[in-house]
């Protein structure tokens, strides 16, 4: 068989498997309640469509072994074939769940799923729709390889960003309402997604912007670089001031309910920055990071809450904070010392063990007199003068996030950061080059613990009540996933990662259910396709930053290896 066709068929079948997966796991059905384009496409229906587009794009891409570049006609045809195969697999699935009762095993394999896939048109018309739709969107994916690279890129990125904008309806909608742009909200958003005119507008803006940036953008970059140093510095200061102003006004802009979410994102930014030191800078895969978070929260709670039996008189929050830092240093050393001589994967498991030990001890009857067992600790006071109203406690969290970000970036660009990176690259060579690896490992754990404990302290003060079950391994995984999505070693990446992986599931209740499934997929896919993360590490290029000082520098290397082929990120 023609190798291209063979690949298209295989890709189509794999796409079908992915379609079966999202259907049976329940996403297609559960995401029906929210629209991507109001009254036209729901988020649930969008999933198979996206799969078909990706499948088509993959089937039409350049083949490596043997090296074949499909002609434009072939590309479209291959995309259509692959998409149609995916559609056919889904059609079979629909027929199957409609006629055989397997719901006692697969809880989502119900006739209602078939109706959804058939768009309520019955088996015959429905199957035709699946096949034709698959072919159509598959061909669309194929077309991406026919278009000139900058256009294809604009089309793909435009689509991805527009979908994100649609998904962020609860957030952006509220923002627009609160800043007095209610008319714009009404124009853009309806029934949980973008309206059709809104969709078109956003798409046109983003795709156009990307196209412009790709074709003219480099010259803009050049121009910025060509500016005299003092002017660039002024520009930088202005940009930072604007950012800080925005951050300060954020609770008012997004309102009380969303401030809650933003606060949680802040806590995870803090966690992510700390874990980033341990994993991203020093290359020590710590899966028990939640232990630091828990120790911070419990230390705060025990010292400040009148409901905790052990210590009275109670300290105010700020009085407890120094003790939290001391506790952090101690727990950091406790976790760090035993794993000093362990290699990466062992270290991961042992730290995982530490995380579980911490949780189990907090949960146990034995430690109940101190930490309250399963009932947890209640009435933890807020960090006065800040109350624990979400719009208020946001500020101290923001303050510490900024502080932590500055600290992390300074360390990254210093002797310490270089030593960590060297250790990450090759431990024994780092040692032979003069790095005291034991010392720097402990330092990484100690600082990571400090950030984690700080986050835990604010978590306790923000929520006011803590239970052992708030400190499951999932917190560690969450923090890990967000730094990996953002790009290990990168500070902006942490913020982006926290926003996407913590913010989105908090905003979209439908997603909360599938949060960890998505995290798992994110980890695997990122490792397979883009292990350096969405925003590659800046620390690696930081050496020249003093005199080049420009955030865009970090994209340069990437652009260097870009083959100019359109990339559809999934």
């Amino acid at each position: 068989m023609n190798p291209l066709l063979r690949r298209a068929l295989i890709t189509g079948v794999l796409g079908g498997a992915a379609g079966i997966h999202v259907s049976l796991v329940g996403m297609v059905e559960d995401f029906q309640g929210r629209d991507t384009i109001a009254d036209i496409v729901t988020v649930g229906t969008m999933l198979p469509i996206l799969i078909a587009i990706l499948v088509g794009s993959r089937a039409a891409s350049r083949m490596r072994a043997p090296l074949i570049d499909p002609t434009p006609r072939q590309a479209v045809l291959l995309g259509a074939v692959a998409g149609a195969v995916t559609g056919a697999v889904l059609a079979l699935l629909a027929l199957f769940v409609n006629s055989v009762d397997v719901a006692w095993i697969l809880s989502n394999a119900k006739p209602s799923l078939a109706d959804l896939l058939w768009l309520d048109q019955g088996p015959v018309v429905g199957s035709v729709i699946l096949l034709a739709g698959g072919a159509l969107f598959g061909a669309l994916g194929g077309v991406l390889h026919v278009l000139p690279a900058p256009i294809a890129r604009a089309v793909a990125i435009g689509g991805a960003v527009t979908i994100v904008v649609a998904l962020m309806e609860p957030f952006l909608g509220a923002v627009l309402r609160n800043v007095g742009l209610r008319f714009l909200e009404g124009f853009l958003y309806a029934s949980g997604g973008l309206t059709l005119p809104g969709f078109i507008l956003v798409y046109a803006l983003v795709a156009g912007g990307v196209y412009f940036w790709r074709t003219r953008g480099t010259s803009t970059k050049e121009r910025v670089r060509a500016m005299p140093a003092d002017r660039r510095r002024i520009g930088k200061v202005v940009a930072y001031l604007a950012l800080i102003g925005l951050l300060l006004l954020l609770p008012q802009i997004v309102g009380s309910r969303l401030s809650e979410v933003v606060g949680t994102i802040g806590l995870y930014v803090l966690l992510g920055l700390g874990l980033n030191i341990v994993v991203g800078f020093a290359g020590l895969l710590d899966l028990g990071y939640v232990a630091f978070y828990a120790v911070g929260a419990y230390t705060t709670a025990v010292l400040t809450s009148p409901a905790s039996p052990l210590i009275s008189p109670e300290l105010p929050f700020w009085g407890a904070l120094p003790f939290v830092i001391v506790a952090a240093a101690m727990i950091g050393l406790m976790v760090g010392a035993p794993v000093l001589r362990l290699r990466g994967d062992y270290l991961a498991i042992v730290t995982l063990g530490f995380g579980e030990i911490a949780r189990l001890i907090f949960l146990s009857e034995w430690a109940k007199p101190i930490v309250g067992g399963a009932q947890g600790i209640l009435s933890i006071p807020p960090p006065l003068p800040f109350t624990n109203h979400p719009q208020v406690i946001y500020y101290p969290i923001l303050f510490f996030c900024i502080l932590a970000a500055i600290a992390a970036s300074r360390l990254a660009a210093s002797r310490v950061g270089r030593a960590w990176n060297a250790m990450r690259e090759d431990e024994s060579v780092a040692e032979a080059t003069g790095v005291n690896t034991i010392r720097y490992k402990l330092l990484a754990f100690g600082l990571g613990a400090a950030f984690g404990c700080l986050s835990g302290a604010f978590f306790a003060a923000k929520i006011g009540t803590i239970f052992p079950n708030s400190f499951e391994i999932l917190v560690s995984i969450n923090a890990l996933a967000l730094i990996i999505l953002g790009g290990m070693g990168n500070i902006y990446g942490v913020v982006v990662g926290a926003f996407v992986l913590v913010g989105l599931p908090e905003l979209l209740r439908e997603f909360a259910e599938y949060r960890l499934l998505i995290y798992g997929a994110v980890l695997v896919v990122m490792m397979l396709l883009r292990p350096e993360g969405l925003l590659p590490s800046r620390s690696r290029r930081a050496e020249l930053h003093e005199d080049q000082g420009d955030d865009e520098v970090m994209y340069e290397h990437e652009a260097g290896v870009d083959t100019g082929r359109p990339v559809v990120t999934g």
Partner: protein
Amino acid sequence: MPGRPPRLNLVNLFLWVLGGGILALAAVGAFLTLAQGRLSGDQWESLIVAGIALGSVYALIALGYTLVYGILFMINFAHGEVFMWGAFTAFFAASALDDAGMMDANPILALFLTLLTAMLVSMVVAIILERLAYRPLRGAPRLVPLITAIGASLFLQYTARGFYGSGVRAYPSYGDLFEGNIDVGPLTMPIEDAVVVVAALALMLALYFFINNTRTGRAMRAVSEDKDVAAMMGINVDRIIVTTFAIGGLLAGAAGILYTLLFNQVHFFMGFLPGIKAFTAAVLGGIGNIIGAALGGLTLGILEQLGPNLFLTGYNIPAPNQLKDVIAFTVLVLVLIFRPSGFLGRKENV
């Protein structure tokens, strides 16, 4: 790194104090417990029996870790989920057979059929895992496959949750097949436990035979010694790696059903703890070593059952069994600190 200087510094001192302290606490606790006569001989016996049964399940899972580690030098973090998928499959197969009335009519055949389906499904899951998640990453930096494995683990876990629901499901009973006790030497075992131990033993023996006496088994050993040389000798390394995953999957599937026989329930999160503990068992025995995995599993199972009562009751700690996982994890930490190569392991593996 052989011959790395064993330097006496603060860190080592701290570790020795920590480890020595924990061991001393355990010893004193055991002494106090025994001196106070808190548990009767029968109670100890039943704990040991339960420990042996649980330990043989751990051993089966541990073999999967050890086999894969021996060949790829990676910890297949998602192995616990392969086990969980086996358990779920066993549950559905048993339920179907129960509906058909076979569990009462012919329980032994029913058990056998369930075992077979569970093993097959786990094998398929393990193979897919290798093919889609691990193979593309061979030769990548160490952290990369490890993170992938964590991701795959989550993915499998929550796929099971989405497919099968998030509730705890009760396993149907095999009629009166497992009623009663049986005397094995000095121990009185519930028949159920005895079945688990015998099945696990049989599988381990089969594996041992397979590794030592078949062409594929010898090829596996060759690949674990040196991949490049093995490839030059005409061994298809990719195929051997898939085979290794498949065997690990088969054993994990069997462990899945045996575990449900002991605890009578399945749940999407059930793979996590046994997975970690089986890994501990593999490390305890010396990772990469098959007999070591079996011994490590048994040791850990017994320690887990016996430990809380033996070490902690003496101190009047309330509800010591809540802390049994703490004991398992502490064992892991101690082993990795003091003898990372395990009982029977090769030194350079750590």
